[in-house]
């Protein structure tokens, strides 16, 4: 008896589901109907008072992508330093995994704890949006740093560096290391890597300028961001272009692989390597003289600037509108750009003198 009933119940459930499909198959809301605005919070309300005094005791919580990640640890340490200077209250919370939704519960917690500012590096620009707007509607200022949240759910975004700034810095370092003239090559990631290609475009524009007319870009090689392939590409470049003076690698994988090859070859001291790398990867090559200098943004400055922006928002000095200005301690004056973006500035250059100050 029971076996028949079992089947009947479950079959009925399934047919109900298929009926629902059939009923709703015609008409309905599609992507095209709702491509309009996604609602949510508004940008920059009220007016800024540039003369407003910075408040003390501002409670700012940092919510990085993930806790116990060396890179974000350094970012938030800058925030802690800045809040110390500003006599604010620093707090750090965050998930152990960098998944899209895990930050959302923390945002809710911070709302209940009535923080003044949330500094967030968003794991997913949209997933955090509803909760961030809930925070903003209860009076909390939101400063995105490192990875932006959708722009209608935060007040400002601290952008580590612009494409233009990075491209210019790479050419500047290459020119300096080549002594102003000679052959240079680029060792990039993959042929269609968005960031790298954007930087390389800026580099080409810079190299076309009269002051760089003696620098000759002979080849762009692609190491696919694989250590082995990058190593072989660096080797190939040096064999094909005996007069090569500098290899510029705008990727942390490429620069480390190229440095490793050069440091163990007789090109050491003759060919310079530069580009974008992390101090921990590059320390040994700086120490053994293979690499003179390379660049990357300083993560601690990102958190530092985020904290100053947060306190300026709470104090009413800025509201997030384009053109507003505020002082950020040791980093100097900043101006808010389009869409509430604040650009940290040119990348930090690492060399033998300062590399031991950084651990990431």
């Amino acid at each position: 008896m029971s076996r028949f009933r079992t089947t009947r119940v479950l079959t009925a459930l399934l047919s109900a589901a298929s009926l629902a499909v059939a009923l709703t198959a015609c008409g309905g809301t599609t992507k095209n109907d709702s491509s309009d605005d996604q609602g949510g919070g508004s940008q920059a309300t009220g007016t800024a008072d540039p003369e407003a005094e910075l408040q003390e005791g501002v409670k700012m919580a940092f919510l990085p992508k993930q806790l116990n990640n060396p890179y974000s640890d350094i970012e938030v340490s800058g925030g802690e330093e800045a809040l110390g200077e500003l006599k604010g209250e620093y707090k750090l919370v965050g998930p152990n995994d960098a998944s899209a939704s895990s930050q959302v519960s923390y945002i809710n917690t911070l709302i209940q704890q009535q923080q003044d500012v949330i500094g967030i590096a968003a794991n997913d620009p949209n997933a955090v949006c509803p909760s961030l707007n809930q925070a903003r509607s209860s009076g909390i200022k939101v400063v995105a740093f490192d990875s932006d949240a959708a722009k209608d759910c935060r007040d400002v975004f601290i952008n580590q560096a612009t494409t233009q700034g990075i491209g210019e810095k790479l050419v500047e370092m290459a020119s300096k290391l080549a002594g102003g003239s000679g052959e240079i090559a680029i060792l990039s990631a993959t042929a269609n890597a968005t960031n790298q290609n954007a930087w390389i475009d800026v580099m080409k524009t810079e190299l076309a300028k009269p002051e760089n007319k003696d620098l000759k870009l002979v080849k762009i090689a692609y190491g696919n961001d694989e250590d082995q392939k990058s190593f072989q590409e660096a080797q190939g470049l040096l064999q094909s272009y005996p007069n090569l003076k500098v290899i510029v690698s705008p990727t942390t994988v490429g620069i480390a692989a190229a440095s490793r090859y050069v440091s163990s070859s007789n090109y050491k001291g003759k060919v310079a390597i530069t580009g974008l790398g992390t101090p921990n990867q590059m320390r040994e090559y700086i120490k053994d003289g293979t690499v003179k200098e390379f660049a990357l943004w300083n993560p601690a400055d990102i958190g530092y600037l985020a904290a100053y922006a947060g306190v300026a928002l709470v104090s009413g000095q800025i509201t997030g509108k384009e053109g507003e200005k505020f002082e950020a301690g040791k980093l100097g004056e900043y101006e808010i750009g389009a869409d509430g973006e604040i650009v940290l500035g040119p990348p930090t250059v690492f060399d033998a003198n300062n590399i031991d100050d950084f651990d990431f």
Partner: protein
Amino acid sequence: MSGSENRLRGSFTRLASWDGAVILVAVVALVVAAAAVDGFGTSNNVTFMVLDLLPIALLALPMTLIIVTGEIDLSVASTLGLTSAVMGSLWNSGMAIETIIPLCVLLGAVLGAVNGVFVTVFRLPSLAVTIGTLALFRGLALVVLGESAVADFPVVFTTWVTGTVADTAIPNVLLPLLLLAAVFTVVLHATPVGRAVFAAGAGEQAARFSGVRVDRLKFWLFVASGAVAGLAGVLWTLRYSSARADNGLGLELAVVAAVLLGGVSIFGGRGTMPGVLAGVLLLATLQNALRLEDVTNEALNIVTGALLIVSVLLPNISRSVRTAAQRRRLRRTPIPQPATPPAP
């Protein structure tokens, strides 16, 4: 031994049973948190807590039935992720959301049926099968959507999922949850299906001999589990307005933890739905309250892990204590029983 003494012991066992205890502890935890933790009792937070526990509670419903039959479904979170990825991809292709949602639930059911076929037709252990599909479905999700996210779902739907009923703190999504919880509770505790579930878990051979079609039952339970995971995938996607292949990553462990904490025996045959719901509520309350008290994630994991161990350990200890006491009583009985074989 008098009858009244027996009745007394019976009610005492019920009171001291694990699911009863969990319900009690969950209520106490709620009351203590509301009284002692700043911000816990606010309507915002209550809404939020329900939203947080929703996917775990949904997945725990069919999981309870599956574990009671002595099987397990570890692929639920990956089913959720694959559903979410497919939902995003269908939405991108221009299909109407009203069609996508039932299709996603159906997709979940089909994925569940895949598990069901492997377990009942090929006679493979569900632990191995669903560990396999855990990886398989998550991999397929990455194939469907890659690392990208789809975020532009219609606002009417996303705000309904995060919204509340009128001006109350009751989230809209609590209604489907309560409805499904009621259905699964009735099915497990008041229908022949439920009795078959317990019978299959207590002893599969015996259940077969007494006419329960164990394989068919298990197959449909996996289908139900998949369909509910599909629904959970839809709600998850709309809640975070973000369809991603990694949605719900690792959620299956929280679900199994809640079910076991709720007093369901991992060996099958025992468990109650109210106990499981209390287990879900207890875990959510602890997480929310401890987070508000700035307890770190590591400590949270330790608390959850310890609770889980205790929930598996305590019922076993109390059972062996009871059995030992029974044996002692039997041994003290003066009448010799030559017909009874020695206690195992």
